[in-house]
Every structure is written in structure tokens, then in C-alpha cells.
């Protein structure tokens, strides 16, 4: 458990004990009672909320979190398969990605990248619980659902910067420099480095 998680549990326990004590003992609203309630309804819950937010934000970057919705089960299974040759799995085996592989690749970067990524993630939760994906069988999901917008090459280039000679010297990169820059051709497409999650694509998409 993360330090944020431990702090959330500790502060919740203290606040909970103060509130239960008030409900059971029903003391008169003296100054001492009000101070105890200030701790139980103000100070400790506030600390708990801050710690919960920190813990939650951390948790939402973990691979297991993304895989906790059943429609992501195949993606999680592939990424965790040590024998898989998919682009996603090969990247996930890199310790720099590891347990945060989904977030590392799919996070938007730039000044507003973090909150925008979280907002997009919220829409996924909405589609899952409010849009019916929760009740979809995996086959139907894989056949019908596609990434919301083209995967940005800029995300690949966070690591593969494109400034090294070995990158620039590749004739495919030279020939398609403009398309790569404009994101009209994806690094992770058939004919280039291959799609990241090939099991989720129809044959005509590979």
C-alpha cells in the first residue's frame, strides 16, 4: 500500500472513532464536544480526502486498475504474457513501463496532459458503467470498440525522440517524416511497427 493509502486509512480510522463515539455517547454540545467534532468532521476527514485523492490518482496509473474492467481483460492478459510479441507487451516488459504500462503509453503529455488524461479516463468509466460496456461480452467489445482518437506519435517520441542518427537514417522515417509529424501515419500501424494490441483487431486492420 502506498503512503497515501496508509495515511487515508489512519485518518479515516481516527475520524470514524470520533464520530462513532459521538453517536453512541451523545454528549451535550459543549466546547470540548465541538472541538472533538471539529477533528472528526473537519480536520481528519480533510486529511483523509487529500490522502484518498493522492492514493486514487496513483492507483489510476496502475496496470491492474485499467484491467479491473473485464473488457480490458484481454489487453491485460496480453501485456502480462512474457511470450507475447505484441508492441504493448514488449514495452510493458521494460522496467520503465512495468506496472504503469497503460498509463505511460496512453497518457497525454504537455502542460495539461495529466488532468486531460484523467478526464478522458473518467469518460471510460462512464462508458463502462453508464454506456453498457459493463454488460458486453469481450468478443463484442473487441470487435466493435476502437480507440477514441488516433494514437499520437508524440507519445512514442517521448522516449523515441527521433533526434538520433539511427532514427533519422532509417529510410522509412525519412520518407514519412511529414506524415509522422502530422500524425497521419501512426508509428503503431500495420506496415510500420505493428499495432500495439493485435488481438483486438480484425484481420483487415492488421
Amino acid at each position: 500500500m502506498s503512503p497515501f493509502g496508509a495515511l487515508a486509512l489512519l485518518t479515516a480510522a481516527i475520524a470514524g472513532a470520533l464520530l462513532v463515539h459521538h453517536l453512541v455517547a451523545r454528549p451535550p454540545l459543549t466546547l470540548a464536544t465541538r472541538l472533538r467534532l471539529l477533528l472528526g468532521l473537519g480536520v481528519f476527514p480533510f486529511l483523509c480526502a487529500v490522502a484518498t485523492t493522492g492514493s486514487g490518482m496513483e492507483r489510476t496509473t496502475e496496470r491492474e486498475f485499467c484491467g479491473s474492467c473485464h473488457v480490458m481483460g484481454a489487453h491485460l492478459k496480453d501485456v502480462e504474457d512474457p511470450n507475447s510479441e505484441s508492441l504493448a507487451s514488449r514495452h510493458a516488459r521494460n522496467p520503465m513501463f512495468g506496472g504503469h504500462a497503460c498509463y505511460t503509453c496512453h497518457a497525454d503529455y504537455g502542460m495539461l496532459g495529466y488532468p486531460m488524461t484523467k478526464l478522458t479516463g473518467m469518460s471510460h468509466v462512464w462508458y463502462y458503467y453508464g454506456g453498457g460496456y459493463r454488460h458486453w461480452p469481450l468478443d463484442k467489445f473487441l470487435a466493435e470498440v476502437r480507440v477514441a482518437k488516433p494514437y499520437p506519435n508524440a507519445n512514442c517520441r517521448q522516449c523515441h525522440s527521433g533526434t538520433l542518427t539511427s532514427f533519422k537514417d532509417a529510410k522509412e522515417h525519412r520518407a514519412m517524416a511529414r506524415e509522422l509529424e502530422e500524425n497521419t501515419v501512426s508509428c503503431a500501424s500495420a506496415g510500420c511497427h505493428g499495432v500495439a494490441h493485435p488481438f483486438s483487431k480484425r484481420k483487415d486492420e492488421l
Partner: protein
Amino acid sequence: MKLLAKWPSEKAVRFACLLGLVALALMVAGVLLGTSLPVVASMSVAQGIGVLAGLLYVVTVAAEAARK
């Protein structure tokens, strides 16, 4: 001021305690379960309920002060 004079302080504080316990339970569930819905609820609904509980407490303190 009339509303504050009639404010049922004892009941309001007990209700605030109940709301506070619900909020804390949701936050703890988010930390312990770690799946999408509990985590999102712990960062949104739980904190909204917690703020409501805190507001009830503040109004009660204000009502007690107004009575005196």
C-alpha cells in the same frame, strides 16, 4: 437568523456524523478495493458527502453561537 434560532443542533450534528461515516467508508473502500468505481467514488461522491457533513457542523456551530 430565525432559521439559526430554530436549528435542531443535536439532530444536525448526529446526521453530520452519519454522513461523515458514510463518506469515510467510501474513501476507505476506494483505497482498499482499488477498482474503477470505488476509486472514482472515493474521489468524488465521498468527498461531496464529507463536505456536506462539514457544512452541517459549521451551521450548527454558527447556530449555537447565534443563540448565545
